[in-house]
């Protein structure tokens, strides 16, 4: 076990995968010592160790970064392309959606596309409208893609290794505000299975389902709720497609209340998919309909007070939890309802 940042953990995952398998390589813009997105150290040591043939610093050519990864995957390697931010990756949506995701299917299983597309997501202070996107709802709706969004350094490392070993294309979403977060990371070749969630907290009054940085925000909300006597089953999905239905449905049956907060714009969000799936699967066991929570439908603004309007905060999650609890609890039976 060693304490390290998220950025260091995913760098180690990539380095270990490249040591284990000579067909693993990585490509992207600015894959130099001074990589500005991945906490400044995302590629430290990799160029010296593996050389420029396997750590490829590319032109600013997003279509070809993604497209070359697809072609190289089809031709027997396991590329890990770093799109720098999900917003830049939008220039390569065609190569992701029309090529990576469909080649196995439309060629009748003749070819596989074992690649990872890393796309840093989320709002970072002052980064404004074109560097703060969260588009996981788009990716989960594309057949053929696996979508991963870890929050802890340990899961970042373990899931990147699992993603690299996956024989299908994986969209790997790393929140930009997580890269410098520290945490304990187990030593050795530890992986986490794709599609399995993580129970962050055990509780009995409410289930909160979150992913990526929203897990940390939800944890803050859980602290507030705990002080009020409300205990929360907090689930970190870790993989968004396929998501851990069993863990979510089991928890929903237990707590009978489900809240799904997300950082992305609420409209058409992945939270709505989870909430609806919960309704369909275990709705009759619940005390009330599941609730979702997301950002207002605005581009991410620049000025701090404006940006704060976009962000879903711990207080927002607490408010949504209160609303859910009030709507699903007979009056007077909830500690939060009682006068101070």
């Amino acid at each position, binding site marked *: 076990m060693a304490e390290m940042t998220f950025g260091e953990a995913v760098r180690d995952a990539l380095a270990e995968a490249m040591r284990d398998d000579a067909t693993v390589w990585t490509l992207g813009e600015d894959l130099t010592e001074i990589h500005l997105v991945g906490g400044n150290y995302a590629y430290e040591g990799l160029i010296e160790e593996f050389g420029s043939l396997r750590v490829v610093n590319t032109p600013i050519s997003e279509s070809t970064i993604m497209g070359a990864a697809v072609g190289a995957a089809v031709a027997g390697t396991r590329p890990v392309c770093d799109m720098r931010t999900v917003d830049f990756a939008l220039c390569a949506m065609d190569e992701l959606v029309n090529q990576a995701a469909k080649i196995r299917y439309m060629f009748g*299983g003749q070819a596989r596309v074992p690649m990872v597309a890393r796309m840093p997501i989320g709002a970072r202070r002052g980064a404004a409208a074109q560097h703060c996107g969260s588009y996981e709802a788009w990716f989960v709706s594309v057949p053929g893609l696996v979508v991963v969004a870890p929050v802890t350094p340990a899961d970042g490392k373990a899931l990147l290794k699992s993603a690299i070993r996956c024989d299908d294309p994986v969209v790997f979403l790393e929140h930009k505000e997580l890269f410098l977060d520290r945490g304990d990371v187990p030593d050795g070749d530890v992986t986490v299975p794709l599609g399995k969630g993580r129970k962050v907290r055990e509780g009995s009054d409410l289930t909160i389902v979150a992913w990526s940085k929203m897990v940390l925000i939800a944890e803050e909300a859980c602290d507030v709720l705990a002080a009020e006597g409300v205990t929360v089953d907090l689930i970190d999905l870790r993989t968004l497609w396929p998501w851990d239905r069993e863990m979510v449905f089991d928890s929903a049956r237990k707590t009978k209340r489900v809240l799904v907060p997300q950082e992305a714009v609420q409209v058409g969000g992945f939270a709505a998919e989870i909430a609806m799936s919960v309704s369909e699967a275990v709705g009759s066991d619940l005390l009330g309909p599941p609730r979702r929570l997301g950002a207002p439908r605005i581009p991410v603004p620049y000025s701090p007070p404006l940006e704060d309007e976009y962000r879903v905060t711990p207080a927002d999650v607490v408010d949504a939890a209160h609303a859910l609890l009030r709507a699903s609890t007979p009056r007077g039976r909830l500690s939060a309802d009682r006068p101070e």
Partner: protein
Amino acid sequence: MASLPGLAAAETGAASAAVVLGCLETMQLIREFEERSHEAVLEGLVHGSLHQSTGQEAVAVGVCSNLRPSDMIQSNHRNHGHAIAKGADPIAMMKELFGRVGGTSGGKGGSMHIADFSVGMMGANGILADGVPLAVGAAQAAVIKGEDRVVCAFVGDGTTNRGPFYEGLNWAKVFNLPLLIVCEDNGYASTTLTRSVTAGGGAAVRAEAFDIPAVTVDGNDLVAVHKAARELTESVRGGGGPRLLHALTYRIRGHVSRDMLAYRAAGETDEHWRREPIARCIQWLRGLGVSDEEIEEVRGRARTLISRAIDEARAAPFPDPGLAYADVQDIGGGRG
């Protein structure tokens, strides 16, 4: 199909005549495939749009006759000729067009998504220019794995106006990749005259701007295409980096087979029928003393094989509907 070693040794004479006769058979296979599959469209047996390469056969055959089975090609919506020339089975391809069991993609892809990885046909793309980045990646994989492999991307003239084409040219040059780009210039971008929407001097000039050597050739002259492609392929295989072949040809049929060609001048198509490559190849063979009997024998073989392809495709069953859920992804696929 077989390569053309005879042409390398002697540009004329009996040895090359035999090789060109083999090429004629492949061109005739493509011609029959394109024309007969349109008949199947009219019968309702082929679903969706069909993009015929009638009149462009010499480009596919002239290029692919220089490639080895381990070399890879990337193609576009008008791909049947490239696939056949690279060695894909026309019977399996016809079954694919019919959407039947035994098709190259099991009926999942259809005409626009023919692939046969067993012969290095890495897939046809319905999204123009996407094949260039994919071919670039396949070439990069060959370098990483230390494989002796040339990757060839067939693109049309219309594709030279899309961004990924330029990204791919730049990238292939910067990383000195074993890539041959063949711009099969049939004059039309869908139903638009390409020159009416294209600035500058065309594909070869654009490649040269990236310091990528390019050769322009009469794409309806099989022997000329073969010779040009041979030199370029040898340069690529020798580690010289990417090359571009600009082959000037003509799309005799419409963008899709039901296209009534209302955008063409009267007589334009007829004029180009007089320049089509199969008749020119036959003239060339006759000039070397090859008999009409020999020529008709190989053409007849091609017609017979495509007739068999139609019959077998017609007789093949449709896939089980449950197969719609296969090969989406290992986890999270299926009906979930």
